[in-house]
């Protein structure tokens, strides 16, 4: 809402400097988004009076104009045809900053010689002053403008651009802002009385109004004016509309807009003779398939839940949103029916958003303005139209008011105010604050309790808490002390999942992984690209009904695609090893319920083979780097995983494993499938891992039991076995672990090649034997080792490598 301060000052004395006023408004809830100063740059521009107009000696279309400035009378060359003796004009001296009338650029005025005559100065158009686009003639000032005065004193203004919160439609009006300013500065607002003479035939003999949908229209008021003359509005009116951000159209439309800005009540003028039969207005819901062309020339398909203003034949306006073209006020209009009505906020919001048609009118109605306003604004608009367009008003006004409600008083107690704010205000302070805002405070039998009635323009006051806020914001939030919560601490039941996420993230950071966060919204293509093969997703992703773009249409069911895209993007400028992880949710649809939102930890390791670095760090990653990360991470999380065959189509067959905990597959680790790597345009090997932390959580909350530290020395033996190539490390270890004295089995070499027969490989282990009851002798260790070798030989065909 743009509020020119000169206009505001008609209703309230503004004594504070502009910045301080803006500060007070902001503290009380209405932020000043911007302040525009009209005439702030009008140095060297003065009010002048035209004292001579002579022809230019060398040009037919130019004239020499002499201007009285009080102390001097400069003569300038001027091309505008509209200047007359005695006109007051804006005169720019050399050095003034102007807008060039042709290019629209800022210029500094310099002396010029035009067709042989020196011109040192200029008389200005509105465009050259930067107050409108009008450049057809010189701007003529009102005759009372004082000669020689700086133009800024006469035409300058400061305009506040206010950010009005949705609860305060009363502030979408200059009078409303004036009342707020008055309350904040201790001034009295002065709202002028409106009166005019209505001499025409009584209105009720000429037109009637029927409200067929009283739930949607609580009040409909109207006046009728004959014999008007459509014309351009006077300068003061146009410049106020322009300053408030509205385009002047003609005197009738301009008055309806002006009064809307003044009172906050939208109005609409119908060309009375264009209404069919011009006898009756019906406020009703739109009929099925009803169509109407709105003022902006667009044909609107109306739905049955939209409210329209209709004559006996058709809809002539979309109630509270926009008028219809068929009854639009035009150059030929001579009689108007002026509507000032109150419509249900939800209905207007629904209509305006369904039609995607937001107007100054709909914006006010949907915030809920009070029906008491209709008559006040109607009288004001009628008065101004009679003044500016002539004509005669019909006697009386139409006023159908099915929604009349007396607002209930709200009780306010000083104790409850203190209980909410944490500070005691005296009854006098409370009454003074509320009274300054126009509230009525009635005393009750208790000195600490009042019955408070909100003023008619406030639609946002329903509860005691609303009144308490009013008191607090007028007294000032800075008057409320700061205290710490002082009652006993609530019981805490920390969510174990949060601790798990934090620990997992920090572990990966410790392993050198960089965390990324990517959008949960993705495209179907991205999801499918990361999981090729069958070509369709295992679970259908949730779809956004109104996506911004196709690549933000679905909720992700996997983090993999985003992580690979992040890798690809970084590969454009990074050739070193990359370790990334994301810890975020996937969204898996459930029937008729909110989706399953599991927390997934997903990471990748990538090396290009191009790395060059100081020893270490240039070894390309392998499957076992990724597996090692998973093992290390899960060990930190007190979980012992096993690894089994996985069937992940996005990973390379034979180079992937499911991460299994207590028989449940909770994740996967493996090398990215070359097809997927190609689809994401990443080169080199990429190793991925994914762990479902939500599913893992129950296994991380185990009960630990202390194991006594072994006191007796261990015996260490290294053995190298020759086994079939197809035999797995795990089969060997499972056999060795079956012996009670074996404390530890550690693989330290895997070899296949010339030193072992074809079809065989060598596995070397360091075995640690230890007893919890005595020091092992060599003989005991030898005995176990022999037993182990015998069992490995008989069960797995393993032999000792010679």
């Amino acid at each position, binding site marked *: 809402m743009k509020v020119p301060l000169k206009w505001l000052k008609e209703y309230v004395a503004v004594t504070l400097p502009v910045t301080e006023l803006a500060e007070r408004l902001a503290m009380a809830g209405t932020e000043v988004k911007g302040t525009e100063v009209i005439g702030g740059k009008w140095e060297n521009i003065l009010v002048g009076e035209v004292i001579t107009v002579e022809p230019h000696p060398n040009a037919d279309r130019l004239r020499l104009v002499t201007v009285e400035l009080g102390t001097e009378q400069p003569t300038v060359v001027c091309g505008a045809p509209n200047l007359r003796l005695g006109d007051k004009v804006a005169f720019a001296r050399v050095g003034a900053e102007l807008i060039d009338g042709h290019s629209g650029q800022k210029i500094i005025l310099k002396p010029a010689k035009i067709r042989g005559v020196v011109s040192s100065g200029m008389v200005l158009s509105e465009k050259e002053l930067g107050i409108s686009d009008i450049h057809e003639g010189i701007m003529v000032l009102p005759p009372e403008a004082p000669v020689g005065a700086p133009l800024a004193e006469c035409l300058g203004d400061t305009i506040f651009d206010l950010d009005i919160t949705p609860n305060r439609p009363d502030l979408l009006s200059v009078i409303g802002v004036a009342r707020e300013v008055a309350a904040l500065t201790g001034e009295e607002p002065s709202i002028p009385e409106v009166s005019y003479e209505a001499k025409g035939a009584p209105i009720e003999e000429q037109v009637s109004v029927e409200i067929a949908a009283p739930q949607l229209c609580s009040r409909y008021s109207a006046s009728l004016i004959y014999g008007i003359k459509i014309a351009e509005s006077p300068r003061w009116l146009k410049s106020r509309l322009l300053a408030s951000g509205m385009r002047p159209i003609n005197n009738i439309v301009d008055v309806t807009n002006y009064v809307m800005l003044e009172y906050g009540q939208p109005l609409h003028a119908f060309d009375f003779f264009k209404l069919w039969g011009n006898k009756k207005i019906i406020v009703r819901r739109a009929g099925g398939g009803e169509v109407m062309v709105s003022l902006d020339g667009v044909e609107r398909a109306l739905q049955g839940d939209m409210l329209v203003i209709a004559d006996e034949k058709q809809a002539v306006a979309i109630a509270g949103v926009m008028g219809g073209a068929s009854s639009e006020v035009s150059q030929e209009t001579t009689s108007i029916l002026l509507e000032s009505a109150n419509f249900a906020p939800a209905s207007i919001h629904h209509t305006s958003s369904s039609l995607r048609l937001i107007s100054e009118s709909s914006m006010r109605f949907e915030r809920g303005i009070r029906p008491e306003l209709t008559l006040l604004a109607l009288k004001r608009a009628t008065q101004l139209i009679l003044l500016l367009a002539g004509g005669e008003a019909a006697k009386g006004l139409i006023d159908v008011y099915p929604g009349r409600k007396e607002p209930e008083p709200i009780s306010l107690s000083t104790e409850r105010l203190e209980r909410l704010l944490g500070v005691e205000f005296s009854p006098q302070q409370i009454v003074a604050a509320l009274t300054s805002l126009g509230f009525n405070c009635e005393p009750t039998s208790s000195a600490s309790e009042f019955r408070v009635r909100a003023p008619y323009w406030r639609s946002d006051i329903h509860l005691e808490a609303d009144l308490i806020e009013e008191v607090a914001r007028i007294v000032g939030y800075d008057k409320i002390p*700061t205290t710490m919560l002082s009652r006993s601490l609530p019981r805490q039941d920390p969510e174990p999942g949060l601790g798990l996420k934090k620990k997992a993230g920090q572990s990966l950071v410790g392993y050198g992984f960089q965390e990324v*966060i990517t959008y949960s919204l993705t495209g179907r293509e991205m999801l499918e690209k990361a999981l090729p093969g069958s070509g369709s997703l295992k679970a259908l992703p949730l779809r956004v009904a109104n996506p911004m773009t196709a690549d933000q249409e679905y909720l992700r069911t996997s983090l993999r695609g985003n992580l690979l895209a992040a890798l690809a993007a970084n590969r454009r400028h990074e050739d070193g090893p990359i370790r990334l992880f994301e810890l975020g*949710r996937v969204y898996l649809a459930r029937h008729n319920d909110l989706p399953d939102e599991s927390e997934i930890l997903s990471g990748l390791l990538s090396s290009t083979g191009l790395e060059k670095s100081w020893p270490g760090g240039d070894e390309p990653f392998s499957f076992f780097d990724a597996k090692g990360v998973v093992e290390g991470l899960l060990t930190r999380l007190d979980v012992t995983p096993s690894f089994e065959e996985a069937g992940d189509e996005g990973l390379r067959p034979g180079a992937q494993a499911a991460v299994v905990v207590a028989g449940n597959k909770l994740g996967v680790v493996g090398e990215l499938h070359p097809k997927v790597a190609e689809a994401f345009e990443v080169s080199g090997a990429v190793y991925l891992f994914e762990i479902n932390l939500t599913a893992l959580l129950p296994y991380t909350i185990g009960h630990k039991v202390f194991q006594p530290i072994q006191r007796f020395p261990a015996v260490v033996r290294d053995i190298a076995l020759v086994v079939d190539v197809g035999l797995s490390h795990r089969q060997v270890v499972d056999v060795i672990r079956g012996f009670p004295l074996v404390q530890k089995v550690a693989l330290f070499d895997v070899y296949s090649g010339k030193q072992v027969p074809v079809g065989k490989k060598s596995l070397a282990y360091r075995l640690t034997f230890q007893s919890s009851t005595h020091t092992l002798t060599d003989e005991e260790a030898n005995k176990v080792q022999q037993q182990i070798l015998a069992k490995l030989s008989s069960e797995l065909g393993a032999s000792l490598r010679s």
Partner: protein
Amino acid sequence: MDVLEQLAELKVRALGELADIDDARELESWRVCYLGKKSRLTAVLRNLGELPLSEKKSVGAGANRLRVELESNLEQKKRALREAKLASSVQKEGLDISLPGYPFPVGRLHPVTQTIHKINDIFTSMGFQVVEGPEVEWDYYNFEALNIPEEHPARDTMATLWIDYEKDSNQRQMLLRTHTSPMQIRFMEKVRPPLRIVVPGKVYRYEATDATHIPMFHQIEGLAVDEGITMADLKGTLYEFSRRFFGKDRKVRFRCDYFPFVEPGVEMAIECAVCKGEGCRLCGSSGWIEILGAGMVHPEVLRRVGIDPEVYTGFAFGMGIERIPMLRYGIDDIRLFYSSDLRFLRQF
């Protein structure tokens, strides 16, 4: 020459030779020669019994003194040789210490995660519990229960992404939460006062992406409900948060603002760090940077979850996360957070 004279001569010779020794092997030979089983000194000590009684005492004492002296000189020499060896080896094996260490990969948490952790820690220390809620929500939790019924103009300030799903008869609308506030309702439905929670998480808006707008960002919500909680407590708690997060020198301002689910409503701003309140481009000439919205929990919101507003009061607040590192580090484009660009992420 009597035995004592021999011992004196032996001492001179032994110590003279010892002084010239500079490696461990020579030192061992010296030990064998003068202190070994076959040495002269050992022989003297062993044959003491053959001496006449008059000499036995003085020779025995002299020989033992010499043994102690030689042994102590031997130990000194050993230590000296060890130290000399260490010194020479350190000198020989000296490193170019300006060479880089073997690389150890460095990982970091995302700046948004870091900020959330830091905020969580501050509120946890004030007795708030960290909880999380679903990102896909019902209209009821995101709007209705927070006093934002259908067609309420406040809905227009939080453009919503709706979820397409097969509705059953109850026609519930599913959406991506536009703020973390739904968790206020979910938590109060489950837990009776007294309660204090903070709720970090992702939120979503139907918004075209540019340098200051993205469709997904993070918020943190706070809620405290108990008997006797006042707006002074709200101010005190948030002031304390600001003091610990932004530092004690940053001024804090509380002004009136509107959110449908609180009354009175509050906006907290901190003094602009760039201009120190003078007004600049960053703060839009106001000198203040808005940090969060807050207020006293609306009585209707309490009533809806079955908490009696005549008995209990509470406060709530909500703040955007990304804004904070943006202000702190001077980041001018919010999209960078979700670009996954290592050149950006490695800076924090």
